[in-house]
């Protein structure tokens, strides 16, 4: 396979890789015109900033699959976040460098001992029902509502936070038990959406009828939801940020088939294809259409990291040499260039190169079947069948399973792919019923939140597909992650994270395959679409249509 493959890899890299490497606002073009258009796009970018946003207009966006509900405090599914990010807001936003920016908090202050966070709120903010937004809502949201129902905020608030209190109507103070560097990264809208106290306090949150008519502070309000067809949002005329939003209405269209979504874009039915909504192969084709822009920005906060989890409880998979053999056997370049159409980047370890605290100083694994064979032989593998659990998220993942199966069979490892639907996958992954399992996890802006959870032994628990399901356990790793989370300075944190990355890359508790890119495809006359580190999930506050 190797000799033929490399041709293709070169071919693919030329076609799409260039698009990747150079600023992502590149318009539809062929490889040769990249440099020219790059210069042009810089020019265009400069132009955009100076251009006065136009008011009004309608944008049609694809959301897939249909969100179960839009009450973002209770549900943080991908599609929910995309739509609800227009309705709800949080204290902070994060730019593409993941630096905190004001949102409902106008400013914030961290005490010198890094234990007190004081947030000053924007003035004149109103909920969609006209009631004022105050510090009471913030305290209710963070201290009561989210503590009760939010799986990401709950562990943080329980472990790190001493108290959350109102100082005055527009000031909130959070006191920590100890310094916790990632705290400033926790206020993204899906992680901590502000919930109206006057509607939810004292009620059964999950049974509250208001869940169907979400009330937030965001730039758009829910007008109509025709199940199976579309979600209709209209401009919030009383939005606190004067002059925003620019758009009048957004329709989120629900089109279940990927190929049909691509045709819907081409025939003009929709203007924006959000990340992951079209087949990777269609990305190349669609971005060459006239008036079409493509960007892979807007995923910096999540930085999805894809890997295979070996179940280290299962016989030979507990053997480090065997896992290293697998890593050498898998042609990850092929996965990136052919299966994923050149999108993404090969990871070196547990922390994405797109986020803070990444270190490339680790043992690396290039594609080397001969070495793989040696290691696998040395590990004492006797030909037992390895069950590879496919991730049922569409054709691309299936192709990836097939390619990896072929890679492993080439070095003499017997593999059987297991297929299920999504609930079946969740069940099997959560209950450790696999030998090798595909997964991709968000990094969530800080290793303490998005990375440690997959490797620390305290997170070995059934029932959650995003826990440490492989069962890897190493006291040294546990300690390094624990210390790094609460080390007072970034420099000290970096040292600890560098150590843990080196250690894990040798031990291979999981086989890292790809730092994924989810391209957003849109008509170029939709401006300021992706402006933050969570992209479309931060809503269409600043977007406008030419």
């Amino acid at each position, binding site marked *: 396979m190797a000799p033929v493959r490399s041709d293709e890899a070169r071919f693919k890299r030329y076609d799409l890789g260039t698009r990747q490497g150079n600023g992502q606002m590149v318009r539809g073009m062929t490889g040769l015109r990249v440099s020219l258009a790059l210069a042009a796009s810089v020019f265009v970018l400069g132009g955009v900033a100076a251009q006065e946003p136009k008011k009004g207009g309608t944008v049609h966006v694809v959301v897939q699959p249909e969100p179960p509900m839009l009450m973002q405090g209770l549900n943080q599914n991908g599609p929910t976040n995309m739509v609800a990010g227009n309705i709800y807001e949080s204290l902070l936003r994060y730019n593409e460098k993941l630096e905190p920016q004001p949102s409902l908090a106008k400013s914030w202050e961290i005490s010198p001992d890094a234990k007190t966070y004081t947030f000053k709120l924007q003035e004149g903010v109103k909920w969609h029902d006209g009631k004022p937004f105050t510090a009471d809502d913030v305290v209710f949201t963070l201290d009561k509502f989210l503590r009760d129902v939010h799986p990401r905020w709950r562990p943080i608030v329980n472990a790190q936070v001493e108290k959350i209190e109102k100082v005055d109507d527009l000031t909130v103070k959070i006191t920590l038990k100890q310094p916790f560097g990632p705290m400033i990264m926790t206020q993204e809208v899906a992680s901590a959406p502000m919930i109206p106290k006057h509607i939810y306090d004292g009620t059964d949150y999950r049974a509250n009828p208001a869940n169907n008519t979400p009330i937030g502070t965001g730039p758009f309000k829910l007008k109509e939801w025709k199940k199976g067809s579309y979600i209709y949002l209209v401009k919030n005329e009383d939005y606190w940020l004067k002059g925003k939003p620019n758009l009048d209405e957004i329709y989120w269209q629900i089109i279940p088939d990927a190929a049909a979504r691509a045709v819907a874009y*081409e*025939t003009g039915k929709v203007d924006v294809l959000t990340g992951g909504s079209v087949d990777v192969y269609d990305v190349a084709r669609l971005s060459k259409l006239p008036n079409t822009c493509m960007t892979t920005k807007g995923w910096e906060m999540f930085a999805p990291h894809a890997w295979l989890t070996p179940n280290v409880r299962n016989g030979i998979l507990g053997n480090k040499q065997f896992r290293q053999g697998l890593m050498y056997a898998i042609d990850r370049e092929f996965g990136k260039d052919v299966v994923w159409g050149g999108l993404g980047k090969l990871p070196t370890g547990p922390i994405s190169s797109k986020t803070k605290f990444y270190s490339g100083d680790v043992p690396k694994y290039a594609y080397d079947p001969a070495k793989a064979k040696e290691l696998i032989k040395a590990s004492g593998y006797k030909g037992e069948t390895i069950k590879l659990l496919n991730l049922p998220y569409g054709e691309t993942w299936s192709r990836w399973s097939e390619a990896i199966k072929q890679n492993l069979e080439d070095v003499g490892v017997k593999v059987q792919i297991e297929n299920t639907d999504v609930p079946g996958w969740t069940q099997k992954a959560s209950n450790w019923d696999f030998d090798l399992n595909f997964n991709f996890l968000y990094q969530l802006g800080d290793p303490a939140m998005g990375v440690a959870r997959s490797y620390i032994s305290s997170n070995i628990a059934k029932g959650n597909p995003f826990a440490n399901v492989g069962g890897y356990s190493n006291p040294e790793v546990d300690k390094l992650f624990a210390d790094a989370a609460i080390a007072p300075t970034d420099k000290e944190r970096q040292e600890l994270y560098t150590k843990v990355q080196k250690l894990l890359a040798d031990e291979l508790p999981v086989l890292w395959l790809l730092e994924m890119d989810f391209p957003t495809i849109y008509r170029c006359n939709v401006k300021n679409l992706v402006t933050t580190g969570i992209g479309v999930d931060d809503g269409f506050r600043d977007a406008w249509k030419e």
Partner: protein
Amino acid sequence: MNLAQFLAGRLVKGVIVLFAIAVLNFLLIRAAPGDPAQVLAGEAGAADAQLLEQLRARFGLDQPFLTQLWIYLKGYLTFDLGFSYRQQQPVLSLIMERLPATLLLTGAAFLVSLVVGTAMGALAARRAGKWSDSLITTLALAFYATPLFWIALMSQIVFALKLGLVPNVGYETIGANYTGLARALDIGQHLVLPSLTLGLFFTALYARMMRASMLEVAGADFVKTARAKGVSQARVWRRHVARNAILPVVTLAGLQAGQLVGGAVLTETVFAWPGIGRLMFDALVQRDYSVLLGVFFVSSAMVVCFNIATDLVYRIVDPRIEAHA
């Protein structure tokens, strides 16, 4: 036995079947791996034991299994199809919201295919062996033998993308706010591709069934007798052959009508048609038990009704059959 007795008897039995099916569905679905709480948690990309517990309690999954079954059946006895926690809506309203779209789609496909298919089959049989027969048979086969989703995608590419004649997906133009006739026309345009795609398949079935059945009957003794008596060819075909040949077609039509509700899953998926078939499939892959069971129940009830109707038609078409109540 008179018609009223026949109907009453069938209805009572229908209800019993439905009840048994409701139980079977419940057991079947529970045998599938995963549950709605796990799915929701899985989709969110984050979960802990407490969240799962909260969700399970909300779905009623923390109750003993038999209690859950009892609550479900008790609800159905009072025409309460339950509540979808996932969608925060009563199941019945979810179904009623989606049912019209499906009935429109499958109704259109059904009528077109029944009329066109039967006519094609009859024509082919009448001209058996001639070129028009071969043409019809080949066409019917082509419709039948091509995977439905392939035709669906191809038709979108050709008629929507390349020719720009009709919209490729959806039920109506979103955001256009048409009313009255303009809206009907708009929906009609959206209906063209999905209903034809779905109809093609059934047209082929009817055509083939009708042709085979007519040829079969044409050789029967009573037809021979009629010919011998000097009844005109046209009359023989119309009165003796076609009338008797329609029996298997009626069987098929009864079946198809019953499957109207659940039979359009693929078509609805590829054409983003907001119908009940998709509601069912989504519920299935989300293990949204109450919705899934509700859709199954509604479609089962429709099958029961259409079965009764089929037997009625049998009685009319072939009086020799005594329908057994």
